[in-house]
């Protein structure tokens, strides 16, 4: 009981931050599922979503700034794919990978240019950033909102993929481009849809994540991006449930480690986990055996 009351704040923070990682991790895993590409720019898109909020909130009320963040992030995700990845569709996978790294640095440098390298104060979002007390733990409301919101979004996404026509096309395209084209599926629309969903969820993730964070810097996307990526690999890259479960496990473990007083090692834990997974179970918790797409 004593242990629980002492660790409850860490557990709650862990579940919350795990949910935020999950929203980012889905973007990695879906893009990988369809293009076999690790979208290195994804963490930076998350960072850009944070910056858009910073600047939007200075000129408009929050209830307008939030939808604007969602729209702008989706557009950026869409444009990145069309400009940097689509022209390389038949190029070797390594070229696309390098292009993704290029986009990552491009976004970081644009952010550096815009911000002048100074950390930008993230606006307090009314209600979401309010301080509340639950089970004797004082925290921001975002901590308790995140887990149910993530569950709702993931459920909606799973419904979309399992029950709709476009979802069926996405599942088909993730297995076999050519045969999907023979069915009349427009592969490029399916791929764009994947980037749109991934960017949308990253934008939601950024709203939640930064509400609990001090400021936005050009490289702020790197760490959560990397952890979400590890979550996706841990869960089995390509698998959506895998990415979500992996993200919660990483978020919780990290915060429990902090609760134990080993804060310095909490990041190291995540990467140790990556190495262990890559050595002992490269396909992750829910991953399929290596599947080189035709």
């Amino acid at each position: 009981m004593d242990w629980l009351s002492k660790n409850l704040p860490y557990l709650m923070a862990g579940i919350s931050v795990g949910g935020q990682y999950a929203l980012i991790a889905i973007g990695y895993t879906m893009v990988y599922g369809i293009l076999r590409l690790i979208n290195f720019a994804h963490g930076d898109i998350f960072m850009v979503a944070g910056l858009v909020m910073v600047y939007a909130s200075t000129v408009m009320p929050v209830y307008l700034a939030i939808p604007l963040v969602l729209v702008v992030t989706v557009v950026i995700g869409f444009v990145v794919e069309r400009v940097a990845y689509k022209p390389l569709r038949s190029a070797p996978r390594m070229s696309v990978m390098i292009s993704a790294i290029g986009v990552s640095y491009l976004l970081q440098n644009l952010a550096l240019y815009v911000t002048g390298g100074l950390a930008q104060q993230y606006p307090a979002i009314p209600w979401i950033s309010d301080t509340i007390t639950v089970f004797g733990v004082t925290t921001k409301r975002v901590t308790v909102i995140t887990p149910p919101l993530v569950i709702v979004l993931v459920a909606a996404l799973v419904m979309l993929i399992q029950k709709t026509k476009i979802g069926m096309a996405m599942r088909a395209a993730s297995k076999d481009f050519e045969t999907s084209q023979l069915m009349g599926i427009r592969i490029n629309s399916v791929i764009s849809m994947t980037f749109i969903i991934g960017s949308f969820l990253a934008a939601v993730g950024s709203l939640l994540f930064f509400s609990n964070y001090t400021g936005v810097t050009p490289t702020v996307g790197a760490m959560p991006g990397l952890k979400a990526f590890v979550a996706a690999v841990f869960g089995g890259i390509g698998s959506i449930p895998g990415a979500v479960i992996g993200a919660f496990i990483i978020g919780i473990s990290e915060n429990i480690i902090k609760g134990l007083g080993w804060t310095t090692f909490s990041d190291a834990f995540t990467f140790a986990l990556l190495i262990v997974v890559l050595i002992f179970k490269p396909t992750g918790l829910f991953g399929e055996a290596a599947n080189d797409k035709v």
Partner: protein
Amino acid sequence: MSNILEVRDLSVSYGGIQAVRGISFDVPEGQVVTLIGANGAGKSSTLRSIVGLVKPAGGSILFQGEELKGNPTETIVRKGITLVPEGRRVFVNLTVQENLRLGAYMRNDDLLKDLNWVYDLFPRLKERNWQAAGTLSGGEQQMLAIARALMSRPRLIMMDEPSLGLAPIIVQGVFDIIREINRRGVTILLVEQNANMALKAADLAYVMETGRITMKGKGSELAENEEIKAAYLGKARK
């Protein structure tokens, strides 16, 4: 009778390799036409270039009088032409019914009638409706691949070696289905290595060798041709 498909001087290259070297052939509407030839003759390359999965190096492909060359696959299949690819290529992670629905992906109308039509042709698929396609046997997967193609209501179905890797009794079933589909008004372009069965089923046949068409005739005539017998039917010259 008018030709639903007219191919003229079609050539296909992969880097330096010329797989198809300027072939011309016709597919008359309502018939079963077969293209037979040994491994590597360029049969798959021909079919794949017709549906735009590979870019032809030259020539022209007229479907109902309209040039297909240069169009993306998604556009070509919308015109009423489809390919049952070599190796079946069913979506193993999707159920049988989802595979069938994907076959009709470009249509927005009610699929019930068509589903019933293909279930009627392939009762086995109805039994396996909710099973993942990957759990079907090879023969069942071939049936599914054909049924999936039918779901788009094509005017022309091209099939790439539908009998490949199937037991003789199943092969017979596949050819029965091909005739049945044709009887229901769909034109068929059939690529086969099983020359014996293909020639029997075909109204018109072409023989392809190393990227060229070397012979043309009625299916029944070519089946009696001594050269064909020796080369493709495994029967020695008398």
